[in-house]
């Protein structure tokens, strides 16, 4: 591709997240399952990384390890030069389900990180209102989560993950449960949020178009045991729009990923 990014955001250190020889095994006897095998990758600060793979390829396990929620066996995982030994305050996680606490209002759900991390409540409240406005939930602050649609719940959970202004946003198939139209809209919103915040984002997905549409790079994983097959750079200009899905670069990337899945016999 000869197209260059018109306003390529200046990015930080190229090895912001650095994973070397990472393997993860569940269980310890002969029944144990090797979930991840020898993962090596680096993630540039401020970049958007999509991780795509069929179910059971260990992509959620990888995310949970980076989030510090899961201990790992072999290898090293470093963030900003420091090994990950547990959860970090500068990481925000968006889970598969929105996990809004049903006894709290939408606003109080978004405020949860402020309470847990002991941030200034007044300032956080203002920020929570701003974030809710950004994800299109103005006027829903005092609603109960169960009164919201699935897409709105997931948007509220994105606002929650951003409240404490984390440097890294980890998203574990956040749009998997949404219908196709809502999903496209959420993809556009996520791109906008990322572009305006300069955060490093890792997005786990099993949708090839979603991975290509959002990612600067796409990590392609194959299962049994989960390994990183290829890193594909997506050279589409930003901001991207849905029309680019028919661009040749998009099609060739999609083709390359499907080929990888077909070869590994994992595209069920």
């Amino acid at each position, binding site marked *: 591709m000869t197209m260059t990014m018109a306003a390529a955001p200046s990015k930080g250190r190229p090895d912001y997240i650095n994973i070397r020889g990472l393997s993860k095994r569940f269980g310890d006897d002969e029944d144990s399952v090797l979930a991840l095998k020898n993962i090596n990758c680096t993630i540039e600060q401020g970049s958007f990384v999509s991780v795509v793979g069929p179910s059971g390829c260990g992509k959620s396990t990888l995310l949970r390890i980076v989030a*510090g929620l899961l201990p790992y066996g072999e290898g090293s995982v470093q963030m900003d030069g420091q090994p990950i030994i547990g959860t*970090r305050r500068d990481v*925000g996680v968006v889970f598969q389900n929105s*996990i809004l606490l049903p006894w*709290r209002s939408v606003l109080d759900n978004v405020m949860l990180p402020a309470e847990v991390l002991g941030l200034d409540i007044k300032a956080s409240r203002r920020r929570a209102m701003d974030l809710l406005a950004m994800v299109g939930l103005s006027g829903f602050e005092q609603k109960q989560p*169960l009164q919201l649609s699935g897409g709105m719940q997931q948007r509220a959970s994105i606002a929650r993950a951003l409240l404490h202004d984390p440097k890294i946003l980890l998203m574990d198939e956040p749009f998997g449960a949404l219908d196709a139209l809502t999903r496209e809209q959420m993809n556009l919103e996520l791109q906008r949020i990322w572009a305006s915040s300069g955060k490093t984002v890792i997005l786990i997905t099993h949708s090839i178009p979603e991975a290509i549409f959002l990612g600067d790079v796409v990590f392609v994983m194959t299962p049994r045991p989960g390994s990183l097959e290829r890193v594909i750079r997506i050279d589409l200009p930003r901001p991207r729009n849905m029309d680019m899905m028919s661009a040749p670069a998009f099609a060739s990337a999609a083709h390359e990923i499907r080929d990888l899945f077909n070869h590994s016999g994992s595209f069920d």
Partner: protein
Amino acid sequence: MDTQTPAVATETPVRRPKVAKWRRAVASTRFHSLVLLALLLAFWQFGVGFFNIPKFVLPPFSDVVVALYSGLSVGPLAHDGFWFHGFVTLVEVLGGFLIGSGVGLVLGMLISESRYLDDLIRPYIAAFQSLPKVAIAPIIVMWMGYGVDSKIAIVVMLTFFPVLVTSIAGFKAIDPDRIDLLRSLSATRWQIFSKVKFPSALPYIFAGLDVAAAFAVVGAIVGEFVGAQSGLGVMILQMDAQLDTGGSFAVFLILALMGVALTAALRAVRRRVLSWMPEQPSRRPVSA
């Protein structure tokens, strides 16, 4: 009034909703069950005379009303009235319920937070749970005497287990995603407990409290049957001895009222605390 209403309704259509409301009330199940009650009471009142049932077996309903009135019309401290004995029983029920369910809840929390405590205590709980607690009532009365405290102890034993068991179940049933959410924010153990675990377990805990409330009244009455100087259970025994069956029925009514009031109070608290829960849980998922 009844005969007039339709006439008024035809004149001014504005009044029609009132008629419709009245019709709906008559058609409602609640009204039907009131009619059923009236029919049953009438059958009781006149049936005993018709079938020649002796008074000490089953007095007419009017005798129960008379006994209720005479028991309630005495002074609050009179030892032959319902106020004094009802108050004693109420203290036993409430005191035992609060202590028993409180201890059950705290122990349930500790057991669900500590694997060690769980393994240590669980076998004893299982063993003690299978024992019918009322069987121990005579021993407790022997140990603690005929006063209020022995009845409270019995109520504590009866109310402790349902709350313990349901709270453990509640803490075990928590969506692990919710805990991961808090962990991802580097939450402390106490934050995870107070912000997620406890509120998540509340529906279970309230189910246990419901059962405990019913058991509390049973425990107090059994305790008073075994040995006491005052309380509604003592009154039932005395009235039984005097073949005052109408009086016994009057006490039953008061006991039923006490149970209903306790359950209603619990429901009110539950509605406040669990206002976020959908009225019909089947309609929408709670886990969302």
